[in-house]
């Protein structure tokens, strides 16, 4: 549906954008252009610079240098408000709406129509509000009842209401960040219908997604970023999926693969999950992890993998199935049971789910090992310090000051190492990691991969759950794919292609 006006001046141009954080280049001379009525897919791995670029466009970050032109005019965005005034709208992965208010109220939140005169001007004119809401929904041919509470709508319709809300006033550009992450295939089709409708009305879309198949369906052009640099911009009908992947990833995968020979498999099974089922989340999952092995579970976000790992760790209750450690069945009802059985868990969001931000490195490292460090409830302080020092040295945790420094002063990578140290200190046999490098920059990422490989070599059984295909392919010799809560296939890294993995994770028969 790309408009014929490619030759016309672009709607948006971002020229030679540079941005560094603390001396690390995140965007290095990136230029992007966007035409009226087109869908531009922004591709790149985690940490490639996509979100930084978008945040600069939205006025969340100030660029170090570079220029932004809108309709040929030079513009400067200092705050999200500035971008909004120029018709730029963001639709984030997590939606921001009031679940207990009606669609009408959500659409007109700040501009509910009111009556006239003295009391009238303080009273909302609900009939008019409803009419406005309905007319806006009609613009996109939507059959959503404006009186329904947001909570009662299916996720895709909530998302669409958000889009309608973004459209409310003179939107020129809509940025969608992983809009389909929580949607089922028919819902995705519905969303795409809306997007096509918008483009027909002249709105331009910047579309960010990890699902490459979608890109080929909806986008007109792709712009690919890698390590903060612009790699290529191509028309979708001129490229193939494989070449896009190659452009995104570079050659790093091949290089890494050789560093690690086959491990595990011959050794004993440490973690075994049998027929684990939790209705609505995952079904009949069976898997084994051997000592010294790294097993990856690859699936798109929302495929049930999060709930699965939380269940193995006792943070959620499965409906049926069993979990065995070293061949013995364990009753795991609480993370404490899992830890006692020798299972450690590294959740996605370390700031929210792992770290005690106000407490010291020492107290964070020893958090899961109180039973062995305290006698009659009293900490044996010298032993605690010795143990902490051991992990700080052996994992190379770097911090300003000593181990009494609050953990919040450490960098993301060092914080993540502290979380690893916690489970090593607790002497676990199995480590389950959820998106282990989410929000970790490129350099620290390979550091963490090295650590994980070293830990596996020392006999730990490691289960990594990730929606990042490159991460899975570069650290996990054995890969399982999960789709809609079911394990769909098992692969060996040496004998699988990215396409095959993606297909299995997208539920297509292999």
């Amino acid at each position, binding site marked *: 549906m790309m408009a014929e006006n490619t030759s016309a001046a672009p709607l948006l141009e971002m020229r030679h954008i540079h941005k560094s954080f603390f001396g690390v280049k995140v965007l290095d001379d990136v230029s992007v252009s966007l035409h009226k009525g087109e869908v531009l897919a922004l591709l790149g791995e985690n940490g490639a610079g996509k979100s930084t670029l978008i945040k600069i466009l939205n006025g969340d970050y100030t660029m170090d240098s570079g220029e932004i032109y809108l309709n040929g005019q030079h513009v400067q965005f*200092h705050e999200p408000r500035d971008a909004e005034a120029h018709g730029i709208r963001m639709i984030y992965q997590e939606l921001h709406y009031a679940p207990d208010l009606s669609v009408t109220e959500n659409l007109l939140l700040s501009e509910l129509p009111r009556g006239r005169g003295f009391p009238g001007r303080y009273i909302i004119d609900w009939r008019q509000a409803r009419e406005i809401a309905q007319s806006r929904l009609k613009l996109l041919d939507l059959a959503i009842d404006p009186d329904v509470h947001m909570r009662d709508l299916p996720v895709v319709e909530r998302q669409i209401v958000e889009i309608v809300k973004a459209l409310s006033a003179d939107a020129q550009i809509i940025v969608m960040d992983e809009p389909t992450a929580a949607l089922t295939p028919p819902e995705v089709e519905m969303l795409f219908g809306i997007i096509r409708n918008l483009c027909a009305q002249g709105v331009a879309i910047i579309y960010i997604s990890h699902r490459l198949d979608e890109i080929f369906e909806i986008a007109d052009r792709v712009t690919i970023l890698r390590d903060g640099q612009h790699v290529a911009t191509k028309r979708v009908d001129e490229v193939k999926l494989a070449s896009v992947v190659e452009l995104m990833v570079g050659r790093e995968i091949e290089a890494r693969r050789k560093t690690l020979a086959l491990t595990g498999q011959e050794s004993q099974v440490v973690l075994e999950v049998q027929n684990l089922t939790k209705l609505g989340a995952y079904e009949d999952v069976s898997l084994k992890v051997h000592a010294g092995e790294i097993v990856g579970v690859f699936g798109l976000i929302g495929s049930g993998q999060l709930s699965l790992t939380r269940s193995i760790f006792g943070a959620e209750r499965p409906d049926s199935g069993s979990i065995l450690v070293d061949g013995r069945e364990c009753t795991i009802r*609480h993370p*404490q049971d*899992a*830890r006692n059985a020798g299972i450690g868990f590294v959740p996605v969001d370390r700031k929210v789910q*792992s*770290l*005690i931000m106000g407490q010291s490195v020492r107290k964070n490292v020893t958090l*899961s090992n109180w039973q062995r460090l305290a006698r009659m409830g009293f900490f044996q302080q010298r032993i605690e310090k010795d143990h902490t020092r051991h992990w700080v040295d052996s994992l190379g945790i770097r911090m300003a000051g000593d181990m009494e420094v609050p953990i919040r002063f450490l960098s993301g990578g060092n914080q993540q190492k502290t979380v690893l140290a916690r489970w090593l200190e607790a002497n676990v046999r199995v480590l389950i990691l959820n998106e282990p490098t989410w929000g970790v920059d490129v350099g620290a990422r390979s550091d963490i991969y090295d650590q994980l490989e070293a830990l596996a070599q020392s006999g730990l059984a490691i289960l990594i759950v990730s929606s990042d295909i490159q991460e899975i392919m570069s650290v996990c010799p054995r890969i399982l794919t999960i789709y809609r809560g079911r394990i769909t296939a098992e692969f060996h890294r040496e004998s699988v292609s990215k396409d095959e993995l993606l297909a299995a994770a997208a539920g297509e028969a292999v």
Partner: protein
Amino acid sequence: MTTMESTAAAGSRPTGLRRFLRASEVQEVLALVIMLALIVLVMASNSNLFLSPRNIINLLMDSTTVGMIAVFTTMLMISRGLDLSVASTAAMCGVIIGTSQSTIGLWPGVMLALIAGALVGLINGFLVTFVGINPLITTLGMLSITRGLAFVFADGLTIPVFDLSGEHQATYTAFTQLAEGRLFDIPYPILVMSGLFILGIVLLRYTTYGRAMYVIGDNEDASFLAGLPVRRYRMIAYTLSGLSAAVAAVFLTSRLYAADPRAAPNIELTVITAVVLGGTSLAGGQGNLFGTLLGVLILSSLLNGLKLQSVSTELQNIAQGLVLLLAVGIDQVRQGKIDLGLWRLFRRQARASTQ
């Protein structure tokens, strides 16, 4: 320029006394010491009686009910809990002693009161952790229930607790001694309160229970996912809070020779004011008992001084309310929820300098 210098100085590791003085907890305690000194100075300059040994003992005796409870409220609030029911639970426990003296006897009544206090705490803990009701609402409900029970048990009357028949003189003398007895000239309640503070400091600093309070209050999810039995720790904290109310009630009843269903009016507010004033964060994860002790002393000096100058109870209540709001305001600033405009100013300058 000055900020540059001070961050540079903070980067080089200070040792010993300087490092100790720079710790923010220590600075907060010092600020409280200065506040206490100022109040004492003002009160003493207005009244000769204020610094008399007798008044100081009185002042400290008055602070014991609040102090004994505040030790455990501090721990509870560090773990991001809250207990508003302490004062009415104390009143109920007092009444239990009063009503049971004629049936099961005085000391068994004291035991029963302690058990009842702990039980109230246990129920609070259960409702908060297992049923998931907000602690404010749970303990507000319990405040109403236990105060109501106190009136029901006592038929609305004040029950004398002394030897009416003259048959159990030894028993009652011993009970009265709880409040009146002295060791090295210091009344027992003051010693018990001091003992509880020391116990609390040891618990918070050296034990798994104490660390659990800080860790759970800072990040409950992370504590759970690290394998800590979060619910069990919370239950213990609420139970100790209820038990401390019962202990305070025993000494209060002994001191008053009576069990009054109206006893300890608004004491929960005084307790929370003292704890928050002492630097325990409403957001959890932070706090210490030195601060709470100073908070208790500041409040009782203030109220005692006002009383000496014949300021009415109503005005005392107003003063106490102001201190609570002040303390909470300070806490908000400390948590960075109020930026006093400085942050915005800084951002504007940063933007100006980048362009």
